[in-house]
């Protein structure tokens, strides 16, 4: 801004570009080139990630074929691998998380925007945003030391007792352990709860006040205003927020690894130990030496996870995701 302080008359009189302009074509090109190079670097980075995962996973795909994506086999002894068990665990735990977290988030967001006393809304909103920033390993430890023992003592046996006489249901809710796919889903739900709630609060708060007031003026209740004005107004953004939460749950490693039991077998029982793609990679990587088939299979798992999370991102963009950070 120092140029603004220069005497203006001389420049006006000559009506020529300032000396600055003459000095700088080189700098201009350099700066423009540098920022563009950084943009291209980011493009190349993603390309490199995909290529590296694909190259690393190639031996596994060559040996096990395209069926690697869905074969439910993971046998380190026979050196036979497929992603089926982990894909199932990943999708199941994430679906459980969404089924639990989304209704709760809607309730909390409604409470924060409509019921809570106005002076408290901003502080509580900030607290929720802070909770969303807590490292996932903390959620994992809480799940492992607090939630899993609690579920084992007070929940799983009782539910399994209730479900036992019901054919079908007794396969899904069978006797199991505190560390299970269900527990993983529950921990994921608690983890994405602040994330989704914070976005819901922002979306509901973005409804134009005029729109809401005019409906209040017609005699609508709070619930009716939210249900018929705010939610339809922010529906696309809310779906995007849910998809963002889903993406976070699908790829989460630490919160899941602690509580899922890391068993590589397929079971319809929600209370059985299982594994997700991320938990398997975290858990078994140490056992896989350089250049082994197991390492290749783990990289294949990584590629599978990448494809799944890309599909979720593409779907959420199609539904117009909100631009939210953190």
């Amino acid at each position, binding site marked *: *801004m120092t*140029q603004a302080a220069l005497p203006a008359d001389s*420049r006006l009189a000559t009506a020529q*570009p300032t000396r*600055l302009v003459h000095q700088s074509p080189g*700098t201009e090109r350099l*700066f*423009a080139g540098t*920022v*563009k190079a*950084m*943009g291209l670097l*980011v*493009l190349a980075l*993603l390309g490199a*990630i995909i290529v*590296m*995962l694909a190259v690393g996973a190639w031996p596994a795909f060559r040996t096990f074929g395209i069926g690697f994506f869905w074969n439910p086999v993971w046998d380190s002894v026979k050196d036979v691998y497929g992603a089926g068990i982990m894909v199932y665990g990943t999708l199941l735990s994430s679906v459980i998380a969404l089924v639990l977290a989304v209704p*709760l988030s809607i*309730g*909390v967001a*409604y*409470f924060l925007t*409509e*019921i*809570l006393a106005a002076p408290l809304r901003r502080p509580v909103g*900030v607290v929720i*945003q*802070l909770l969303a*920033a*807590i*490292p*996932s*390993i*903390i*959620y994992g*430890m*809480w799940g*492992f*030391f*607090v939630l899993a023992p609690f579920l084992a003592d007070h929940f799983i046996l009782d539910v399994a007792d209730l479900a036992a006489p019901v054919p079908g249901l007794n396969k899904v809710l069978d006797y199991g352990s505190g560390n299970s796919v269900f527990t993983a889903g529950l921990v994921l739900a608690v983890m994405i*709860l*602040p994330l989704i709630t914070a976005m819901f609060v922002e979306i509901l708060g973005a409804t134009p006040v005029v729109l809401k007031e005019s409906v209040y003026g017609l005699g609508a209740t709070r*619930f009716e205003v939210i249900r018929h004005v705010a939610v339809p107004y922010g529906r696309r953004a809310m779906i995007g927020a849910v998809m963002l939460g889903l993406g976070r749950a699908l*790829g989460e*490693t*630490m919160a899941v690894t602690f509580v899922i039991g890391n068993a590589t077998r397929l079971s319809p029982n929600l209370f059985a130990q299982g594994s997700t793609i*991320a938990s398997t990679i*975290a858990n078994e990587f*140490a056992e896989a030496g*350089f250049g082994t088939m197991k390492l290749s299979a*783990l*990289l294949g798992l*990584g590629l599978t996870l*990448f494809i799944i999370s*890309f599909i979720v*991102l593409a779907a959420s*963009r199609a539904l117009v995701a909100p*631009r939210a*950070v953190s």
Partner: protein
Amino acid sequence: MSAQSARRKATNAVVATLASGAAILSLGLLASILFTLVARGLPALQWRVLTVSMAPTGEHGGLANAIVGSLIQVAIGMLIATPIGVLAGTYLSEYARGSKIGDATRFVSDILLSAPSILIGLFVYVILVATTKTYSGIAGAVALAVIAIPIIIRTTEDMLSLVPVALREAAAALGAPKWKVVTMIAWRSAGAGMLTGLLLALARVAGETAPLLFTSLGNLNWSTSLAKPMASLPVAIYQMAASPYEDLVQLAWAGALVITLGVLAINILAQLTIGRRR
């Protein structure tokens, strides 16, 4: 009052009750996490946690090497990520509006932003660990940088797009070349917001565990060599929490408390940076 009106009011009351119930349940769950963290972490948070390196069970170890390792890797990661993220974000905001490459870069940055962090760890493993045949602190730092870059790009672009066009035009009308408009007008106006983005990225990578598991691996001993396996607080917590020894588990809770306080402090700082600007 008509029956319909009574029913509508009843529905409203039921929904309010359910929402309050959801809020109480959710806050209760989250309070349980914070309570557990403080109740188990605080008693274990002794001076030696910060001054002594990790040790096997029964030998009164601390977390000093893990804390220092984390600081080193996070600092180097942010040093790598900041220029790349800020310049790429500037490119998207100032130079690539409407261009195909710009749209592609923005899309790719979004993919990176949503990519599971463990995949970034796998990627860095393949390019830096498998090639050098050793886990290393620098590999951990690079993994953290790759996670931070899309966060910085996103906030930089968003903050720059808030700078009024009139401000840029005023500078350009004075004859300032574009690079000066960008660096002296746009960057300065958006400075606080961009700083917030850097702080959020910092808070995010400081708590990351998964990408470090097979890049810097962890190290029981004091080591500041970037070419060797390096300890980090999240990985140390993970290893000790999963151990069967009560003293190590306690130390893990102390570490969990330290890292949570650190991450929350950075986030509060970020909130204040935004607040000051408003």
